[in-house]
């Protein structure tokens, strides 16, 4: 390559820099393009659902996704056709109880694993983790027969009690509690606090992000829980949202506009909850995976 004068060199460097800048801009643009296309793919079905929920029944099967006349009364119609409010209540009621019990039992167990030193602790903990591997299908049938024996069939208790214990919650909260300095417990103990006081007044407040994460996950999971209520609930007034939706769909299958309105009402609380609690959810998923 021939020698360059300083001017030529300056120009060469400038050109390289501009080229790199252009390349970066093009790269960013392409990236946004991909991200937007994927985003639209995610959004499209939801959009169709919303629009269909405002259509008149005669229009639902039209190709044009936009209603020619808007029918917000579809939403009121749903409440007239089925006890949708009741389903809401049942779902929230059951999910709230399960969440409360699961969080409490998990937090207590997590305290024992993260804050106390006792012989055999790590062995017991590994055993606990092992149970995360047991597939739900294996325990479902025996749990069903057990619930029948306990006369819990078709009751709130049947929905709540078997779901009140989890190894996952214990694991998640233990991870959080391990990050809190042990010196705090010791100081409180020296001041004469009981273990329960240490657990409740020292460790729990500091583990709050973890607790919130677990609460959100458990609540969400149980709000949408399908299998267990499906096999357990026979009476209409005890149906939770997913079960109510299932029967609504199978008996009113042709009224797609009403079914879409019900679907919108089903997932709307989830979307709001997600947007409000995003950072906890993202954090929780990422922490839950730091297993080995």
């Amino acid at each position: 390559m021939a020698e360059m004068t300083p001017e030529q060199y300056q120009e060469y460097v400038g050109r390289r820099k501009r080229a790199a800048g252009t390349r970066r801009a093009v790269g960013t643009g392409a990236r946004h393009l991909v991200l937007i296309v994927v985003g639209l793919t995610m959004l499209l079905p939801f959009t169709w659902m919303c629009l269909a929920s405002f259509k008149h029944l005669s229009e639902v099967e039209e190709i044009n996704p936009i209603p020619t006349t808007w029918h917000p009364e579809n939403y009121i119609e749903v409440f007239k056709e089925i006890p949708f409010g009741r389903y809401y209540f049942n779902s929230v009621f059951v999910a709230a109880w399960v969440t409360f019990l699961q969080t409490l039992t998990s937090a207590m167990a997590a305290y024992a694993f993260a804050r106390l030193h006792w012989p055999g602790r790590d062995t017991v903990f590994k055993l606990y983790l092992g149970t995360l591997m047991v597939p739900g299908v294996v325990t479902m049938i025996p749990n069903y027969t057990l619930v029948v024996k306990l006369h819990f069939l078709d009751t709130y208790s049947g929905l709540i009690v078997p779901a009140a214990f989890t190894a996952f919650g214990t694991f998640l909260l233990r991870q959080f509690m391990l990050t809190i300095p042990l010196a705090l417990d010791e100081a409180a103990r020296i001041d004469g606090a009981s273990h329960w006081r240490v657990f409740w007044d020292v460790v729990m407040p500091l583990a709050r992000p973890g607790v919130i994460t677990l609460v959100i996950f458990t609540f969400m999971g149980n709000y949408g829980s399908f299998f267990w209520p499906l096999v357990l609930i026979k009476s209409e007034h005890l149906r939770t949202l997913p079960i109510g939706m299932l029967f609504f769909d199978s008996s009113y299958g042709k009224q797609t506009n009403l079914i879409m309105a019900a679907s919108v009402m089903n997932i709307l609380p989830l979307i709001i909850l997600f947007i409000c609690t995003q950072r906890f959810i993202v954090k929780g998923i990422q922490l839950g995976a730091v297993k080995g």
Partner: protein
Amino acid sequence: MKRTSRRRLADLGVAVLFLLPNITGFVVFTAGPVIFSLVVSFSNWNLQQTVPFQWVGLKNYVEMFHTEDFWLYFINTGYLMLAMPVSIAGSLILAMLLSQKIRGTVIYRTLYYLPSFTSGVALLILWKALYNPEFGPVNAAIGWLLHNLRLNDLAQFLSGHGIQPPEWLQSTRNLLGIETEHARLSGASWGIGARDAIMFMGVWMGIGGGNMLLYLAGLSNIPQDLYDAAEVDGANRWQIFRNVTWPCLAPTTFFIIVMSFIGGLQGGFEQARVMTGGGPAGTTTTLAYYIYTRAFEQFQIGYASAISWVLFIIIFTITLVNWRLGGKQVAE
């Protein structure tokens, strides 16, 4: 020394009290049931008690393996898992796009996470409507494209007949061309059918979900030094991915694969129950749905327990194999 051990023993008492609620629940609703279901799988127990209770030894297992249906359901379960690599690769690509400094990351992330966060009966019902072969928007869009891009005319010209949009959930066709009656391939069975519909929907639901978030976390944990060093060495983008990003993400990928297998083998229940009833011709019945119909529609608790144990053993074996194969690579 003595003081410590005394304290450890004192802690043991407290620990037992703190563990009691959870352990009790665990014994009653997890450990007990696992053993109970194994025991019951050797019986003919029927909840409706149409037949007297009897121990039947291995009869349930023998019967299961001699039923053609079982093998179809086994194939179905595996078939739905074929999308796993696509889904995982998609999650990785999205995570890599999002992890770069780019505007609107949170908005994109929220959008992508939406389907998996709201997944459940409502979304399955939605997809059932979307897939409707006559009135659904999916086929409306396909029809529009075929017409406006003149693809139909082209096909007509080339082969003499036009392109029919898929029948989605009503078709037994599939992309591998597996026959429904026998476990073999044939051209006549080739096409897009119910299993593919469920698979595509699964990718839509899962691609921006937990796996993407896990990859995002994994990516943010890779030290910048490694990238800088690679750049100084003059590595191109592919080389950087191959030698820095991919190895650093190995533990995440490994975790995702293990969990995907565990979830996939147990999967397909909700889709079958809400969207297809296991049909057409049993092609969307997975092992999980098979267990459900046997246990809770026909009340054959003994037989259903046997299937669930076979599934348990499959899951356990595959997880073990995963650990053997993947654990080594991760450690390297």
